């Protein structure tokens, strides 16, 4: 597994992603499953360390609305890469809740979907697939870089001159 964040692989991931039963350590950033986060919310918020939540595809944001601003990491899952729900959740987080923390994709994260993920607002990709890791390292990713529609990262990429409202190139965004 490798973590690709904002354009490069990183080895210093400070986050501990906890399961349903793992004890919360006394210090350090932790991310918990959504249900557990909501159940243990009071204790977690009192902890003096960055907080994160793991949201399974299909779980949605219900119940988290008031906490999004205090989160530093949100992990959205792709159980299969053909399950596209987390793309919508990502855009809602970025565009509606103005979430500015780390947005991490995990699960079936494959090279042919990377740019879609980045454009929907993911800035960190947890990659298991060896071919995808190698292709990213070697700069072999060939993906269409031009876009016809607005999405979540448009402030990072200036519009192309020439009249059309939304056309963009995100060639530098991966």
């Amino acid at each position, binding site marked *: 597994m490798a973590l690709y964040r904002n354009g490069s692989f990183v080895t210093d991931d400070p986050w501990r992603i906890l399961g349903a039963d793992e004890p919360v350590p006394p210090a350090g950033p932790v991310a918990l499953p959504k249900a557990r986060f909501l159940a243990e919310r009071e204790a977690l918020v009192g902890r003096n360390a960055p907080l994160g939540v793991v949201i399974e595809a299909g779980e949605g944001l219900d119940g988290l609305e008031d906490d999004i601003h205090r989160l530093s990491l949100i992990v959205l899952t792709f159980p299969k890469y053909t399950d596209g729900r987390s793309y919508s959740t990502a855009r809602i987080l970025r565009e509606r809740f103005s979430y500015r923390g780390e947005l991490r994709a995990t699960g079936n994260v494959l090279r042919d979907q990377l740019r879609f993920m980045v454009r929907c607002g993911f800035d960190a990709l947890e990659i298991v697939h060896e071919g995808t890791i190698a292709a990213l390292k070697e700069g072999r990713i060939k993906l269409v870089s031009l876009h016809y529609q607005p999405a979540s990262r448009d402030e990072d990429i200036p519009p192309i001159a020439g*009249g059309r409202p939304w056309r963009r190139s995100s060639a530098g965004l991966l």
Partner: protein
Amino acid sequence: MYRYDEFDRQFVAERVEEFRDQVARRLSGELTEDEFRPLRLMNGVYLQLHAYMLRIAIPYGTLNGRKLRRLAHIARRYDRGFGHFTTRQNLQFNWIRLEDVPDILAELAEVEMHAIQTSGNCIRNVSADHFAGAAADEVADPRVYAEILRQWSSLHPEFTFLPRKFKIAVVASPADRAAIQVHDIGLQVKRNEAGELGFAVWVGGGLGRTPMIGRKVRDFLPEAELLSYCEAILRVYNLHGRRDNKYKARLKILVHEAGVDEIARDIEAEYEAIRARGALAMPQEEIARIRAYFAPPAFAQLPARSSVFEAAKADSRSFALFAERNVAPHKVPGYGIVTISLKAIGAPPGDATAEQMELVADLAERYSFDEVRVSHEQNLVLPHVRLDDIPAVHAALAEANLATPNAGLVTDIIACPGLDYCALANARSIPVAQRIARRFADIERQKQIGDLKIKISGCINACGHHHVGHIGILGVDRKGEEFYQITLGGSGDETCSIGEIVGKGFSSEEVVDAVETIIETYLGLRQGPEETFLAVFRRVGEAPFREALYADA
């Protein structure tokens, strides 16, 4: 016609290279077939019974001579010299080698064409009225909005892995020639009382194994809000559409299970949130920029009546028949809309040879301001022909077996590729269509029967739209034998209805006789030649047809 600028050209070129890379990884074994399938489907590549099939997008069914000639060239060079026009205004090649696909896509890109999103669980090619820009009853050219939707939906980052495929159709007249109510989103361009343009919006229509008519969720959506509203519909569907069962994954099931009121509320809430952000409001300059591409051609001022046209009708019985059935009124006096039937008696519906494509390209350039349309009924259309020129066009078409005067008649049959090609099919469709056409080949008999739409699907997925056929035929497998179930009273127009199953199925031997029995029953019941099959069915119901079909049972 829309023309690519540098941005569009680079977009399609990058897409070709992306797919070339994906094919190379598949051929090298780096990608398994399972991993490759959704990628190839996104580019219109299916694995069929005998070979790969490539489905090429013809946005809203609009072609010109250059594009059609390139399709002919691809048919000849990479396939077996013909192609198949589909019910969603696309073109399929059925005998393609996977390793050739990147080169074919590169050849298409040169003429501003592609195969993006002609398959897969994404927003498919947007279809529109094939008479757009020519029909007397339209309030605007629906292709302007179809093109805006095409651009917005192309490689949309959020909506590329939907629960299931997603189809949008646009018309701009009260008469629905694009079957919008059996699409996931159906749009009818209209004007409100203040004269402003906007849309009536239907959602959740579809055929397949659970046919449903779309539900109207907006009577008037302002023009500038089109994309905000469509994005809202897609987001609600992407988040809430079922993913546990591919046969229950279309938007129609979500609308049906949750109820249209709840879905409409969800859409409106999402729409308000998207609108508040403002990112998708269509600037008037952008609408105007796209509209300029669809400006009417330089029509001549002509008398409404053409003496050449009238004389040809008087002189030639075959031309008179053609003029009666295959020429529709044009909004400009002195012009007509010519339907080129791809339903010659005994031919596979919707097929055209490379030579036929080239002839139509020639005729379009010479006589129809270089425009050709593909209809969802699997015919071609020359939308803007001077009445004075139609006799010459007819003569040229007749030479190529393209002048069958059967538009809208009993032999103008829609049929899916069926078991002759398709891996999903349970039964053959094309041979049944051919046998029905031969039974009713006599044009006088066809005219006597009048408007009648027969639609044939080779399996429950309903690619031949049998649910909305006046007479629908569905092929099923019964213990290894092909059987055909008949539905009656379906319609895909503005009076949309789903056909009713009339009774037990018929064997391949029996099915043509059954169709004839239905038609004879209709002829006996009608109150006059002007009462169509559909009108009679709606008046009397299925009982008399059932009695006639199963009298001996």
